[in-house]
């Protein structure tokens, strides 16, 4: 089929190109045809070959072999009606087809089919390609039967097929071994949205806008049984699949413009119903599961559902010209009414307190107030305050946070623009330390840091500089610090900062250069101390004492050059990025993780005449990961800190080896 598609397109191209010199801007009846067709190919040389290409091909195949790209636009002579057909890499694993049609001010419709791969591993000795293929079919369109009314519809169908690495535990307590398997994936997801919007005509003062929409989302896991395959002999592992589910949302949104103080009020309400009624399996006794190599028995259909309700109202008022007042309130309710479900009660019969810890509802609120004052065209200040609260049922605690913010925008000269803001947040929580046994408060099992006490500081700064007409610079700085207070367990602190700069320079009409750099540093600290488990079992990861510190540093360089070597004849375009990261676990047993990736692409385009052009390109890609960490990933370590035995089972997923690729490309392009 791939070959037939290529032959078909090749034929079309030869027909269209055969009398190319006779075509100016091609006229087709009352329409004119524009766009381009590009045909050529790429040749790949990579090291090491085949099995080690995993990371470089993680989402896209190498652009090698026969390559075709096309973008054709048909426009009516009055300019109102248009059609567009776009095609990229047909027959390859990242192919993309797009069809658009429309009439300005009346309707627009587009349908797109594209593919994407997600490779997990290519170095397994038994399966040299473990991954899934994602296919997407998307429709998007709107129709305006009158200037006031818009009817819109969207649909996205996603299909995932392939194999995904999985694993299951063997041995109930000791030694916690696990074995890996390949899980077949056959997911189908469909999201449909339809709605209608009312707006007043653009030449009338807008008073009211309203919109109603409905969203249906379905997910099907595509399999009746729950089987994974263990390479290489294909023995079976029975594991649970993500259940098929469905979600329905009805949303109403609107806006009101009031003449009084130029006030605009916007609001939204959305009701959702999420349900899951897929097959449930069990062993002979709850909490005493059968071995994974034995299928469970059908226990019934789940019959679970939750409802969501979201409400939002916001307004902005300008009582006097330099002053704007902002206010908003939002509420999100997640309602779980499954505690009486028969299947659930059977599952939790041995640990009823766990039922309350997991099947709870929560109600999230946020209220914001702010004021923006414009001193003059060059200086403006903003102040604000945000309150957020979350309350949970089943005794799972509540949180409340208060956050004042200040900000400033200052343009002191016509070549300098500064933006800065600062936010402070204080959050208090209750019941964020969870014990399985309320009678024994020392038997704490989890610290829910996302619901616990927190002090946060957040700073952002942006500067744009235009020193001369041909140069543009921008600088960013941001910093955050999250201090998780009042807990003697778990995460204590999370902080990070980043700084970045970009410079664009146009020294000549024919030369455009840009360069950018970004550095980011992240660090988290958690306590290595463990709470005493009811059974008395304690322990820490070897080498972890006191505080667990994880530090990550990221650096990215990016550059681009567009040079017209010979005006209207010869163009050179090159762009590249190089990024490297270092992750330090501050543990003598766990080695640092260093990764680097570079992608450089250079194209030379020679314009033969108004329509024909030739293009030559070179692509360089390289990926690397520190070998000590790779070895740890594959082999583990012994108590003495020495590498363990090689484990081929770990090359099923998430593991990539170093690789370098060089790709040469050549194209012929015809432009209408």
């Amino acid at each position, binding site marked *: *089929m791939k070959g037939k598609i290529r032959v078909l397109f090749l034929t079309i191209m030869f027909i269209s190109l055969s009398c190319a010199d006779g075509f100016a801007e091609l006229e087709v009846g009352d329409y004119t045809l524009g766009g381009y067709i590009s045909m050529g190919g790429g040749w790949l040389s990579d090291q090491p070959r085949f099995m080690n290409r995993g990371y470089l091909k993680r*989402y896209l195949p190498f652009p090698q072999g026969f390559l075709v790209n096309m973008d054709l636009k048909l426009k*009516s002579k009055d300019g109102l009606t248009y*059609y567009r057909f776009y095609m990229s890499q047909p027959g390859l694993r990242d192919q993309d087809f797009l*069809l658009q*049609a429309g009439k*300005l001010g*009346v309707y627009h419709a587009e349908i797109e089919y594209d593919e*994407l791969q997600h490779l997990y591993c290519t170095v397994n000795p038994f399966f040299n390609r473990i991954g899934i293929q994602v296919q997407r079919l998307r429709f998007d369109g709107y129709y305006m*039967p009158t200037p006031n009314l818009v009817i819109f519809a969207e649909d996205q169908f996603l299909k995932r097929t392939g194999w995904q690495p999985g694993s*299951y*535990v063997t041995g109930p307590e000791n*030694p*916690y071994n*696990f074995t*890996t398997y390949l899980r077949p994936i056959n997911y189908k*997801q469909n*999201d449909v949205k339809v709605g209608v*919007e009312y*707006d007043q005509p*653009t030449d009338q003062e807008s008073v009211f*806008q309203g919109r109603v929409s409905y969203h249906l989302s379905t997910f099907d896991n595509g399999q009746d049984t729950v089987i994974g395959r263990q390479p290489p002999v294909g023995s079976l592992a029975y594991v649970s699949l993500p259940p098929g589910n469905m*979600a329905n949302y009805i949303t109403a949104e609107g806006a009101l413009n009031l003449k009084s103080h130029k006030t*605009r009020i916007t609001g939204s309400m959305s009701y959702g119903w*999420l349900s*899951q009624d897929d097959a*449930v399996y069990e062993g002979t006794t*709850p*909490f005493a599961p059968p071995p994974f190599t034995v299928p469970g028995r059908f226990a019934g259909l789940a019959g679970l559902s939750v409802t969501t309700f979201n409400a939002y109202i916001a*307004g902005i008022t300008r009582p006097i010209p330099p002053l704007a007042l902002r206010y*908003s309130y939002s509420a999100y309710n997640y309602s779980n009414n499954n505690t009486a479900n028969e299947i659930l009660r059977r599952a939790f019969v041995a640990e009823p307190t766990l039922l309350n810890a997991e099947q709870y509802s929560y109600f999230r609120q946020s209220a914001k107030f702010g004021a923006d004052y*414009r001193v003059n*065209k060059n200086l403006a200040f903003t102040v604000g305050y945000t309150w957020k609260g979350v309350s949970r049922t089943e005794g799972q605690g509540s949180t409340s946070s208060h956050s004042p913010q200040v*900000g400033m925008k200052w343009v002191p000269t016509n070549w300098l623009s500064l*933006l800065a803001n600062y936010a402070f947040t204080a959050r208090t929580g209750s019941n964020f330390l969870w014990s399985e046994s309320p009678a024994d408060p020392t038997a*704490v099992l*989890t*610290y*829910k840091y*996302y619901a616990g006490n927190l002090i946060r500081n957040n700073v952002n700064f942006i500067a744009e500089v235009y020193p001369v007409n041909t140069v543009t610079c*921008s600088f960013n700085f*941001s910093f955050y610090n999250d201090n998780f207070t009042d807990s003697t*367990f778990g995460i204590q602190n999370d902080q990070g900062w980043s700084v*970045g700069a*970009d410079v664009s320079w146009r020294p000549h009409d024919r030369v455009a250069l840009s360069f950018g750099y*970004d550095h980011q540093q992240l660090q*988290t600290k*958690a306590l290595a*101390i463990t*709470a005493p*488990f009811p059974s008395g079992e304690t322990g820490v990861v070897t080498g972890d004492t006191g505080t667990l510190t994880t530090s*990550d540093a*990221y650096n990215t360089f990016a550059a681009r050059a567009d040079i017209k070597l010979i005006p209207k004849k010869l163009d050179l375009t090159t762009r590249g990025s190089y*990024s490297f990261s270092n*992750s330090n*676990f501050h543990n003598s047993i766990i080695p640092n993780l260093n990764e680097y990736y570079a992608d450089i692409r250079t194209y030379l385009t020679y314009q033969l005449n108004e329509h024909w052009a030739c293009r030559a390109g070179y692509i360089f890609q390289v990926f690397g990961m520190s070998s000590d960490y790779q070895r*740890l990933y594959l*082999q*583990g370590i012994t108590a003495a800190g020495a590498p*363990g035995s090689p484990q081929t089972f770990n090359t099923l997923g998430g593991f990539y080896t170093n690789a370098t690729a060089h790709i040469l490309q050549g194209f012929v392009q015809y432009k209408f």
Partner: protein
Amino acid sequence: MRKIIVTTATLVFVALVLIGFSKAPAAKEENNKGAKEEHEKAEKKNEGYVSTETCQGCHSDVYDRFKKTAMGTLFLRHPRTAMEKHGCETCHGPASKHVSSGGKSFEGLVRFTKEGPTPVSENNDVCLRCHQKRHRLFWSGSVHSVQGLACISCHVVHTGPGITSRYQLANITVEDTCLTCHKEQVRAENKFSHHPLREGKMNCASCHNPHGTTSPKLIKAISTNELCFNCHAQYRGPFIFQHPPVMEDCFNCHQPHGTAYPTLLKQPPIRLCRNCHITFHNLKFTIGNTTQIRANMMVGTGCINCHRNIHGSNNINGNLFFR
């Protein structure tokens, strides 16, 4: 599957061609009737307006670029209202004083340049007269609006390299447009684990609506979880055994812009899980007379090697997410 797609695409293409040659008489008649009333009103307010041809006399290059855009096609060739008939002056305001002064005076004009005297909010009001619907419904009061971002900071109307790009972005691509202020987030696409942005299969607007939303961080859903479920509905549940941090927010564990660890985790599993799970397995085991570290907790996916269905389990025996 491919045959079905090609056949369907061909049929849709033919159908759209037929629709395109159809007319919408009801809309056209209503437009004509409304336009006549509007034209009469506009004539009374026509003072100070010159014609587009006058603008073209001095700004021919701008005119030539503008007429190729959608706005230019409508304003210059098919104005639907009296306001659109003013062409360039629909947005820039009456230009008579500018013309009579030989281009030296800008009195009465709305200028969309950094050095122009018109404040950003007034410039934006011009655009919002027509473009305050659909995805821009919640622009007023949104974080970009509060920060003083002008429409022309991200979009071009008739001048700039992005004039032929989709949505007429100032910097051609979505990533380059967002990069000016959000370097850390955009450059995160270069990290080891990332969504396919640098591969061109997604962009910032796949998850965010920069024009304003009802949700924090300008995400295009009522909650962060529902945003992720647009593509990852396999984690929607509800499950028999739920994992509370998953129920409340995917971003308790994941950083969607990019990280150094697989599956967009903020930290490696062995550290991430310990942020909450403060009781821990004995990490040494004995084989024969040799005590070894449980290497399985260091390698692969760490804790997830055993607790595989960590997002939730639909199995009656799935209490520890083993199955």
